[in-house]
């Protein structure tokens, strides 16, 4: 296993390879003096692996415990894991044996909080020999510290001649800009506003003789009026999804589901309808799981005081 780093990258970052004492696993620690991606972390780790089948079909050459540790820094796990699972390739029918050998990896990843970055069903291996089917073998997982930094997973680079396609994973600072809540103009309380608006006076613009003066007069007049209107207009929630149980992973699934549903509506063929259906099922299942997880965390952290709030959530006010 080898890793290539561009020289220009090394002028700003330190890259330290770490070998785990196991064949076919290479970890790279990328560090910088400056905090990375606008976070408090100064380094992140990439684990690259090539996990192959063994004589015992239930176990692959690299064990899941080695790949998905619980760590407090950003960790990206990538590699040819040689496993097949409906989570990465929802439209294919797999044998019981294939599913059984992949379950320990996906279960361990979920248990450690890792999210799968591959878009479901996007093939990463195209066999060079005829007859064999393409498959999703090259998987990428991000742990909770790294997941918000993942901007894109893309397989658009030209082929290198290998049966595996090159994949680009882009990391970037997460958008921290929070938009202010929007006024719900359709629900403005015009009844209360009526006498106020009737009495609103616009100051005269007599002294405006230059463009900046006119601009300032306009801004002040408009700001006064808009502030008045906003006072009597309710605001929307920060987001349609401002729910305590919502996760960034659900945002991605939501986007994927709506994209698939749109394509299915436009193309109107059986294949795309199946993709949309699978995507929808996965999205709703993930919502249910996120709600359950949040509910459990409420119960786990409940104090004698907050227990009554939990009871109210479960049984209502009665």
């Amino acid at each position, binding site marked *: 296993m080898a890793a290539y780093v561009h020289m220009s990258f090394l002028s700003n970052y330190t890259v330290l390879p770490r070998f785990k004492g196991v064949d076919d696993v290479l970890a790279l620690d990328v560090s910088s003096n400056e905090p990375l991606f606008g976070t408090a972390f100064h380094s992140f780790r990439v684990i690259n692996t090539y996990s192959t089948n063994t004589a015992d079909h239930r176990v692959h050459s690299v064990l899941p415990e080695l790949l998905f540790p619980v760590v407090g820094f950003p960790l990206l796990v990538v590699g040819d894991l040689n496993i097949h699972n409906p989570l990465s390739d929802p439209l294919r029918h797999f044998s019981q044996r294939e599913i059984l050998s992949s379950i320990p990896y996906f279960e361990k990843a979920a248990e450690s909080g890792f999210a799968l970055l591959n878009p479901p069903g996007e093939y990463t291996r195209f066999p060079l020999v005829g007859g064999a089917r393409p498959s999703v073998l090259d998987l990428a997982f991000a742990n909770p510290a790294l997941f918000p930094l993942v*901007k894109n997973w893309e397989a658009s680079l030209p082929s290198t001649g290998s049966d595996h396609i090159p994949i680009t994973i882009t990391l970037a600072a997460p958008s921290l*800009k929070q938009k202010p809540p*929007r*006024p719900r*103009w*359709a629900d*403005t309380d*015009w009844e209360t*506003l*009526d006498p106020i*608006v*009737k009495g*609103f*006076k*616009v100051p*005269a*613009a007599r002294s*405006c*003789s*230059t*463009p900046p003066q*006119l*601009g300032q*007069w*306009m*801004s002040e*007049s*408009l700001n006064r*009026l*808009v502030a008045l*209107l906003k006072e009597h207009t309710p605001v929307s929630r920060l987001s349609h999804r401002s729910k305590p149980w919502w996760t960034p992973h659900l945002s991605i699934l939501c986007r994927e589901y709506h994209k698939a549903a749109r394509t299915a509506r*436009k193309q109107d063929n059986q294949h795309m309808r199946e993709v949309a259906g699978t995507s929808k099922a996965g999205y709703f299942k993930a919502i249910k799981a996120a709600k359950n997880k949040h509910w459990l965390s409420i119960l786990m952290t409940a104090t004698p005081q907050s227990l009554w709030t939990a009871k109210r959530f479960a049984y209502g006010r009665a």
Partner: protein
Amino acid sequence: MNDVLLEHFFPPKKPFSPPPRLRLNKSAPPLRTDEIASALAKCSPTSAPGPDGIPYCTWTQGNKINPSILLHILPPLVLLGYHPASLKSSNSVVLDKPGKPSYESPSSFRIIVLIRTISKILERIIAARLLAAARLRALLHPNQYGSLPGLSTYDACVTLINDVRTLQRPRLKVSSLFLDIKAGFDNVDNNTLARILREGGRPPYLVSWVSSFLGERSGTLVFQGAPETPAPVNVGAP
């Protein structure tokens, strides 16, 4: 991607320089309530608003309660022939053109520019005045159908068919040539437009307002992952 789209849709041009001092155009007729009401009536309440987020329905309702607000806010801009830069910020929503084989090129996208609704209301009022001035001076071509109230593509087609049949009756040979100016509104040059308006004998206050409206603009591209930073726009019409 943001820079490539900006370069494609809003190529850099010589920026507009506002006059150092504003001159009151005493010849400009005062703004009337019916002009404002007529402009508001043409605005769809469901149209997407600009960067300030205020929809047309808010202005319509406010104007019903107190018509003097817009009647006092808008006239100074018309009389002084100047549209402040603060009213010319816009959101440019990037939409992909359907059915393109690749979305690598900026030409695979189209842009919808959303300006502030109050700017749009005044733009409609000025457009109505420009149209009245053009009609008064008989500047409109008899075959002009676009952007005129009461006329549409249907009228253009009926006229074309009528002309063709009239010529075919005495067994004359008729040919039609159709021309399309690609991205005409996207490449409107402010100085050229001002010169054409002046030469057409439009009132000076309208010419200076139109020049000011098209200059000193700024736009923010809106698409998933966009940095959403405003960039100067000195070409085209919003």
